[in-house]
């Protein structure tokens, strides 16, 4: 299973490096969305730093949606499904590989968006560094959940529009937990109880993905 996971993750990341969709399309979108969020709040509130964690996670959700669609589009490219079926790849490994690649891509976009948050929204740099471990885990959870929901929407009518309807309710608790733990790292407060939610969600989505991804790929 792990061998397949590495294989699929390496394949997805290699395609991403070569196509540079993340670099030239997704990251600019994220930066623009962050700037627009700041503009929508106005200079007083946007610079107050307390809005930083919420806006960071909101923009991250939009970026995640783009990345999920991109990740699933790779699987739907001509001949890919047939190749996976012919090779007899373990579906659990495929799920883990896609989730891993998406996690790495989200970490990259997270670094850019955090830098933007510090520069534009005046989020405290030291507090942001303290929040890094919780952000790393939250983004991995978004990737695991997103891979699962992404597979649910592919092949039907309007996958790009259906995906937000399915994922945003599932992402809501992660958004709240991520924002609260980020805020706690910045301003003090209970950090661990929000961590627990994210870690439990990561374990649950990974377990469900390993168990049921094969069912979704059945033909």
């Amino acid at each position, binding site marked *: 299973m792990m061998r397949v996971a590495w294989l699929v993750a390496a394949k997805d990341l290699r395609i991403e490096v070569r196509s540079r969709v993340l670099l030239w399309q997704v990251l600019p979108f994220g930066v623009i969305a962050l700037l627009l969020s700041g503009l929508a709040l106005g200079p007083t509130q946007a610079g107050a730093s307390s809005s930083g964690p919420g806006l960071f996670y909101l923009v991250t959700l939009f970026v995640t949606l783009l990345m999920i669609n991109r990740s699933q589009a790779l699987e739907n490219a001509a001949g890919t499904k047939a190749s996976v079926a012919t090779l007899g790849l373990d579906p659990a490994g495929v799920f883990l590989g896609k989730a891993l690649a998406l996690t790495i891509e989200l970490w990259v976009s997270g670094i850019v968006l955090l830098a933007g948050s510090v520069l534009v929204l005046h989020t405290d740099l030291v507090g942001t560094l303290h929040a890094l471990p919780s952000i790393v885990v939250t983004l991995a959870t978004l990737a695991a959940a997103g891979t699962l929901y992404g597979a*649910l929407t592919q092949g*039907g009518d*309007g*996958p790009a529009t*259906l995906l937000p*309807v*399915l994922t*945003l*309710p599932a992402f809501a608790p992660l958004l709240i937990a991520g924002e609260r733990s980020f805020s706690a790292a910045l301003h003090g407060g209970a950090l661990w109880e929000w961590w627990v939610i994210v870690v439990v969600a990561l374990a649950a989505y990974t377990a*469900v993905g390993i168990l049921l991804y094969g069912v979704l790929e059945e033909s």
Partner: protein
Amino acid sequence: MIKLSQRLLGPVTLLALALTFWLGLWVTPPDAVQGDLVRLLYVHPPIAWVALYVSFGTATIASCLYLWKRTRSANLDRIAYCAMEISVVFIVLTLITGSIWGRPTWGVWWAWDARLTSTAILGVFAVAYLALRRANDDPALRARRSAVFAILTAINVPIIHFSVVWWKTLHQGASVLTSTGQLNVHGSMLWTMLIGFVGFTLLFFWLLRERYRLEVKRDLRVATTMDEALAQRRREGV
């Protein structure tokens, strides 16, 4: 015996609901603190019970059984779909009755409370389930994806149930039974509430049966239309 119970389901449901409304509106006394507002609580908790536990439970169990290859059948997929559809109606009713009670009690129609928010999220999940079904034409693929999504959605139910314990909420905790198993409601108020729970649970099963029958007829019509279209094409020599 089964036929008789099926025939009786409708009348017994109507009787239980009529009894709930009669007892709730005319027989039970006003509450010492809430006054006449308490009468809404004879319907709000039973509706929420059906929305969160009975209908979602039915949809989840049917979905799990569908995914298990030994028990896989189109009937289970239909049951899950119909239960989820009824769940949407009951979740909306839960939010509406809760809002009507919340306005005079809390002073607002809506509060960003853990119980309220998580219930609203569950409602969006249920609507998303219906959207997912509409997006897939292949019955087998649609059934598999819907079953997986229903199971993922069900993770929300325990979060809603324990939200009043895990977080400080405006919504009160367990009101009928305390954590030690002691009853908090007594006399005619308790009986009215219990009859309400029975009535709304029966209403769910009545609606489920009728909706299921409709779904079977719809599937049959789709299959017949397809057969007729194929036969016509053959006659045309295509």
